[in-house]
């Protein structure tokens, strides 16, 4: 027993020195970077997946004289609901990452202050329908589409499906895996795609047939894509994913993609930015409102738009942006998609999810 005392003491000393020596968050703050040239810090609230190259952020801070603080809050749904709950005392000045399935809830609650920046060409089509108060500015978009592992179908000598109508046919029994609409955002987008396509009366019937045809429902996109999709070593060659996914399934020998998206199954997801009413420091801070506007402008700038595909795996709204080579070659996008009106999504979401849950639980 006596022998161990020095070890214990050493451990305590190590722990103390770890804490004292900046190995803790309390000890090692970010070097007082909160004070910039004119002393204005703008807080950008974003969802979990927000990411931009450090250099871009540093360049923006240098040219604008602002300090940008980035705070991340859960996924798009959790982010929206947290903004609604904190609308009287927002946690930031500007938000990025509200998408078109959650947008109207926050707009209706009066979370945003109006701002209508000069939109780059191509961005008008992604403006939020019914947003007459200029609450939100589109920044990027992506489509949720059914992806097919063409290499698997070729190997098995089978014909891949040509449309999502085919997925209920016996030829495709037990081949589809989808992320749940109640637990994932691409899952909800796919549900909305079927509602837009088959209508309020037909979508339940479609899902009933889909379930009867052996569709597998898993929790999230990563479960579907990484565990069940044949490309990742799973057993199912049809999966709900994104229109950009084929850019990531390139065969090293042929330099061609081995998967493709069913373009008639897509649902467009748009991500918006908006000013938070009141801002972090409360009313009357004209300086932080001006700074927040600069952040929105920056998100629309050619530099940030060009960084979106590699940093966040989404398409920029600015149609002039040059895409990475693999994206340009293999990420085929639908020319148009059937959408559900965002206001209707907000009103019906709970009902639809409950009905969907009943169908897939049978």
């Amino acid at each position, binding site marked *: 027993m006596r022998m*161990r005392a020095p*070890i*214990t003491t050493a451990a305590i000393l190590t*722990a103390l020195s770890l*804490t004292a020596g900046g*190995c*803790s*968050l*309390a000890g*090692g703050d*970010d070097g007082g970077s909160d004070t910039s040239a004119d002393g204005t810090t703008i807080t950008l609230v974003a969802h*979990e*997946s927000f*990411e931009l*190259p*450090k250099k871009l952020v540093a360049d923006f801070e240098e040219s604008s004289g602002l300090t940008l603080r980035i*705070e*991340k*809050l*859960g*996924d798009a*749904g*959790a982010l929206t*609901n*947290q903004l609604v*709950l*904190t609308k009287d*005392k927002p*946690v*930031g000045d500007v938000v990025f990452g509200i998408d078109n399935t959650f947008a109207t809830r926050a707009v209706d609650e009066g979370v945003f202050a109006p701002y209508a920046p000069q939109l780059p060409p191509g961005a008008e089509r992604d403006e939020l329908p019914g947003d007459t108060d200029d609450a939100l500015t589109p920044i990027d978009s992506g489509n949720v589409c059914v992806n097919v592992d063409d290499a698997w179908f070729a190997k098995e000598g089978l014909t891949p499906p040509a449309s999502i109508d085919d997925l209920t046919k016996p030829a495709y029994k037990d081949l589809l895996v989808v992320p749940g*609409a*109640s*637990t994932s955002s691409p899952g909800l987008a796919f549900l909305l795609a079927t509602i837009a396509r088959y209508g309020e009366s037909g979508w339940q019937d479609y899902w009933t047939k889909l379930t009867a045809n052996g569709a597998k*429902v*898993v*929790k*999230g996109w*990563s*479960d579907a*894509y*990484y*565990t*069940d999709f044949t490309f*990742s070593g*799973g*057993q*199912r060659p049809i999966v709900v*994913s*994104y229109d950009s*996914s084929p850019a*990531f*399934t390139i065969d090293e020998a042929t330099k061609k993609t081995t998967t493709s998206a069913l373009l008639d199954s897509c649902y467009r997801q748009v991500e918006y930015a908006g000013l938070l009413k009141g801002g972090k420091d409360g009313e009357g801070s004209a300086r932080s409102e001006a700074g927040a506007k600069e952040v929105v402008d920056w998100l629309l700038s050619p530099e940030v738009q060009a960084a979106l595909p*590699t*940093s966040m*795996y989404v398409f920029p709204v600015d149609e002039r942006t040059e895409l990475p080579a693999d994206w340009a070659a293999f990420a085929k996008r639908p020319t148009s998609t059937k959408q559900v009106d965002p206001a209707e999504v907000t009103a019906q979401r*709970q009902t639809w*999810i*409950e009905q969907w*849950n009943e169908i*897939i639980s049978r």
Partner: protein
Amino acid sequence: MIDRAVATRHLGTAASVLVALVPLVIVAVFFVLPVGAMLQRGLWPEGRFAPGAVLDVLARPRTGRVLWFTLWTSTVGTALSLALGLPAAYVLHRLRFPGRAVLRAVVLVPFVLPTVVVGLAVRELLGEGGLLGGLGLDGTPAAILIGLVFFNVAVVVRTVGVAWEGLDRRPAEAAAALGATPAQVLRTVTLPALRPAIVAAASVVFLFCATAFGVVLVLGGVRYSSVETEIYLLTADLLDLPAAAALSIVQLAAVAVLLAGVARLRRGPDPTVRRLPAAPACPTRRDLPAIGVTALALVGLALPIAALVAGSLRRDGGWSLAHYRALGGDAGGLLPGPVTDALTASVRTAVDATWMSLLLGGLVALTVTRRVRTRRARRVRAGLDALFMLPLGVSAVTLGFGFLIALDSGPLDLRTSPLLVPIAQALVALPLVVRTLVPVLGGIDDRQRQAAASLGAGPLRAWTTVDLAAVRRPLLAAAGFAFAVSLGEFGATSFIARPAEPTLPVVIYRLLGRPGVDNEGTAMAAAVLLAAVTALVVLAVERLRVPGTGAW
């Protein structure tokens, strides 16, 4: 002389009130206030008390299904964890064989792994293409049970094993000498003596099962919903706060009842603190069944981890270290910096969470083990004890959202403070720390303190030479566990606003959220790295050989 004694006693009372006050205030601010704020939004929508909505929710058929599902999976999960954990506790803590310390640490690893990783690993195994894919368990309640047991066997092994290790052997030997068969000895002597530890383990496992979030979400697909995942869906997705409040109240009430019941069962002398650690015995033929079950449990725990390690080493159908080399990069612009930076961020957060939970847990343990004379004081003490266990029974999403709406003004506007994450993690680790320290502090014979006092030691001196000496190593062990829990914590962390620097579990989650084989491989490599670091911490704790560690 008498005056001075009275004065000292008053001073002592004042000091102990102060000691109790600090954790009380902290739990009030960082737990009661946020959770209360969320419940208030549910019960008083638009400022008026409207319990009707809450009652409506309880009448929904879906709510009934959710409650029933939670109840039965938790019960079966607890039973299975005990069935596998009790023999393993005996083998790993009572028998002597090479590699015992490593195995004990291995058993603990699943408990501190992030659920994203566990979900990935278990599905790798049970999925349609996995090693056990033929059983068709993926997406069924059986998969959820496997996940729950995978997590919780550690709790049983730890809690019961440590008690078993310190059990006085003489009663069992006496019974055997008087002609009792081994089965009789087990039934009439050993099990009754272990009852407090078994009850403690079972209750904590039940709590963990009933409040499991990630496991149910990842392994249950979407067909099955527990109270915890339902609260998440209602709050984070649907913003149906009355419904979420209704379920939270049910959950809190159930947890309170459970804790009260456990406290009753545990009353009376706890034999595990009168420790007479005996040398572990060599395995004999009679131990074969227990060894068999233990081997089964170990294989069950090792398989998913092995699948994970294998996955991290495979690329393009061959073996490669490429994914580990990728840990030095930023995943092609997806992350703000190298994955190794995230490990640093994790460690820094864990250091903070550790000292916070130790400080809090230490004060709580001092309070609830204080000798009190009156019945009322005893009640207050029991109430405090239960209060500090309650964070176990509250959903992470409720706490995270509650932070945002409750801590929003004046000096309490900590919503975007970098310290909020370690504070939340410290709350998660608090029950663990308290349960590690309480048995040791409670087991100190008061006569030792009296002897010190009569030899002329002041209260402080008596405390350092008696209490601190006994509690030093358990404190280190608790620090190790708090550190490990914080490293792997994801639930609460993901609902708190935080600055750009992500922790390792967050990075793993993010890598898994994007297409690309390399992202998945890097995520697996990062998960292996996290598991390895965690295992090392646990192994270091194990080397301290702390008596009474982990009696949760």
